[in-house]
C-alpha cells in the first residue's frame, strides 16, 4: 500500500473577476511508499503547499485523484492516520503546552490516562517538559515548532506531513528535529517533508521530488540522484608530496583527470556543535 498516491492531480486557483485561473499544480503523479521519508522540494510558488493542502483535504482538487492509505483525500477518514505540522505555526497563545496537546489529543478521541501518558512522553521527546505549564505566548520559535511536532504526533499517525519543520529554528533544534525524523523512520512511519534547507533534506530523505511551476521535474532515490558516477573521491592521510605527485601521474597515465587536490573541510554545523559541546557550561536551550 502506498502512503500517498496521486494521479493527474491538478489544481487551478481562480484569480478574480476576468483574471482567469492560476495553474498551481499540473497533473501530479506522486507516490510515497509506506515507511519512507520523501522530500518534496521546489522554489516558492512551485506547488508544494498546494500538494499538502490537497492531500489534507483543505482545498478541493480541480482534476485527478489523491489517496492516503487507499482512502480518497476528500474523506474525513483519510486523516485518521495523518499528522500535520504547518509552516510557521503559532497555535493558541493562551493555552499551555500541556493544554495544547490535550486539546489535539481529545479531538482525536483520546482521553484519560492513555492521553496523559502520551502527552508526557511527547513533551519529554520534544524537550518541553519544563515548559509544559507555560502559555504558548511565552514560547520561542523553536519551542513552537517542537510543540507543533508533538501535536502532529499526538495520535500516533502512520503518516506525517511536515512543512518547513526547521524554519526559524536554531542549529541545535534543527539537528534535533532531523534526528527525530530519522527516528520516526526507524519506527516505520512515513514522512513527507517540504523544506528549502537542501542539506537537511539530503541527510534524511530516501526519495525526493522537485516541483517547479506546478510540475514534477525531477524525482527519484536520493543516493542515486546525487551520486556523480563519473567522479571518484579518495580521502587519504599522511601522504608525502612525492607520493602525491606519483598518484597524480598514475591517474593521468590511466586516462583520467585530476580535477582538484585539496584538504577536506568540515561543515560549519559540525564546527558549531563541537564548539558548544566543548563549552563547560553546556549547550543552550532556553526552555
Amino acid at each position, binding site marked *: 500500500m502506498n502512503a500517498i498516491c496521486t494521479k493527474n492531480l491538478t489544481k487551478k*486557483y481562480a484569480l478574480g473577476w476576468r483574471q482567469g485561473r492560476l495553474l498551481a499544480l499540473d497533473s501530479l503523479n506522486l507516490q510515497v511508499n509506506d515507511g519512507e521519508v520523501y522530500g518534496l522540494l521546489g522554489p516558492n510558488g512551485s506547488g508544494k503547499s498546494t500538494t499538502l*493542502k490537497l492531500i*489534507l*483535504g*483543505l*482545498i*478541493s482538487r480541480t482534476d485527478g485523484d489523491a489517496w492516503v492509505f487507499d482512502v480518497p483525500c476528500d474523506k*474525513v*477518514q483519510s*486523516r*485518521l492516520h*495523518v*499528522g*500535520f*505540522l*504547518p*509552516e*510557521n*505555526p*503559532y*497555535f*493558541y*497563545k*493562551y*493555552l499551555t503546552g500541556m493544554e495544547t496537546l490535550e*486539546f*489535539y489529543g*481529545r*479531538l*482525536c*478521541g*483520546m*482521553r484519560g490516562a*492513555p*492521553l496523559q*501518558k*502520551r502527552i508526557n*512522553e*511527547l513533551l*519529554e*521527546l*520534544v*524537550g518541553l517538559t519544563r515548559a509544559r505549564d507555560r502559555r504558548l505566548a511565552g514560547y520561542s520559535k523553536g519551542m513552537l515548532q*517542537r510543540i*507543533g511536532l508533538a*501535536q*502532529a*504526533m499526538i*495520535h*500516533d499517525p502512520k503518516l506525517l*506531513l511536515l512543512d518547513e519543520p526547521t524554519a526559524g529554528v536554531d542549529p541545535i*533544534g534543527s539537528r*534535533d*528535529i532531523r*534526528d*527525530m525524523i530519522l527516528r520516526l523512520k526507524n*519506527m516505520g512511519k512515513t514522512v513527507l517533508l517540504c523544506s528549502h534547507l537542501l542539506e537537511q533534506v539530503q541527510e534524511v530523505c530516501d526519495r525526493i521530488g522537485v516541483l517547479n511551476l506546478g510540475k514534477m521535474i525531477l524525482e527519484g532515490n536520493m543516493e542515486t540522484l546525487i551520486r556523480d558516477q563519473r567522479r571518484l573521491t579518495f580521502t587519504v592521510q599522511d601522504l608525502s608530496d612525492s607520493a602525491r605527485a606519483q598518484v597524480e601521474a598514475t591517474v593521468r597515465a590511466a586516462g583520467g583527470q585530476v580535477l582538484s587536490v585539496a584538504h577536506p573541510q568540515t561543515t560549519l554545523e559540525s564546527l558549531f556543535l563541537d564548539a558548544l559541546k566543548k563549552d563547560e557550561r553546556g549547550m543552550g536551550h532556553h526552555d
Partner: protein
Amino acid sequence: MTESQVNLTTAATAIKPGRVGFSLHRVWIIGLNTFTESMRQKVFNILLIFALVAISSASFFTEFTFSEQLKFMKDFCLGAVSVFGTLIAIVGTAQLLPNELENRTIYTILAKPVRRLEFILGKYIGMALLLFISVLMMSLMLGAVLKIKEARMVMVAQQGVDQASTPDAREAAEGDLAQIRADTADLDIIKGIILIFIKLSLLAAITLLISTISTSMIFNVAVAFMVFFAGHLRSAATEAWAHHKIWLALLAILPDLGAFNVADDINLGNLIPWQHVGLVAADGLGRIVIILIATHLIFAKREI
C-alpha cells in the same frame, strides 16, 4: 530535545477505523477551547465597566421619584448588557476565523479527523457559551445592585410613611413603598434578559456567516454592525415599503431585531406573556439554525 531513550507508546489513538461520523464531543472540545481562549483574552474585563455602570446608575438621580430612579437603573443596566453583549458577540465572533487562519491553527485542526461542520459549530458554541456567561454575570450584578438600591429606597419611603401628616398622604406613601417592592421584585425582567441573550446569539451567528466569506476582521465587524442597525430598522422599513413586494422579500432576510427588545416594555410595567417570549425565542433560535446551515454550506467548500 533530549537524546534519552524515550519510548513512545504506539497506537494510542482511540479512533476506530472506518467512517468518521459526526461527533458532538468534538464540537464541545472545540467550543470549550474557543471559550477558554476568549476568557483568557480578558473579555471579562468588560464586566468591570458594566459594574461601574450599574453602581453609577444606582447612586445618581436621587432627586427623581422612586419609580423614575428604578426605571433609569434598569434601563441603563439592561442597555449596558445589550451594548456590551453586542460588542462581545460581533467583535468576538468576527475575529474567530481570521485568527484561526493567521495562527494556522485551523490547518492543524482540520488536518485531524474533524469535520468542517464540527469545527464551525464548535466555534459558535464557544461564542454562545461566552455570551451566556457574560449575560449571566451582568444579570447577577444587576440583581445585587437592585437589591442594595431597594434597601436604601425602602428606608427613605418608610420615613415618608412615618412622617405623613394626613391619611391621604400616608396612603400615597404606603403606595410608594409597595411600588418599590413590586418594581425590584419583578422577575419579568428575566424575560427581557432571555431575549437579549437570544438576540446576541443571533448576532454572533450572523457575524460567523459573514466571516466565512471574508477573512478581514474589520469587514466582518462593519457588515455585522450594518446588519445590526438594519435589523432594528426592519419593522419601520416594512411599513414604508409595504407595497413593494421585492423590497419586502429582501427585507425579510434580515431578522427583526427590534422584536427582541422587550426589556424596555418590561421596565415600564407592561405585561409580556411567556407565550410572546416563546414566539420571539422560537423565531430567534430558528433563524440561528438556518444561519448556521448557510454558514456550513459556505465553509464546507471554502478553500483553507
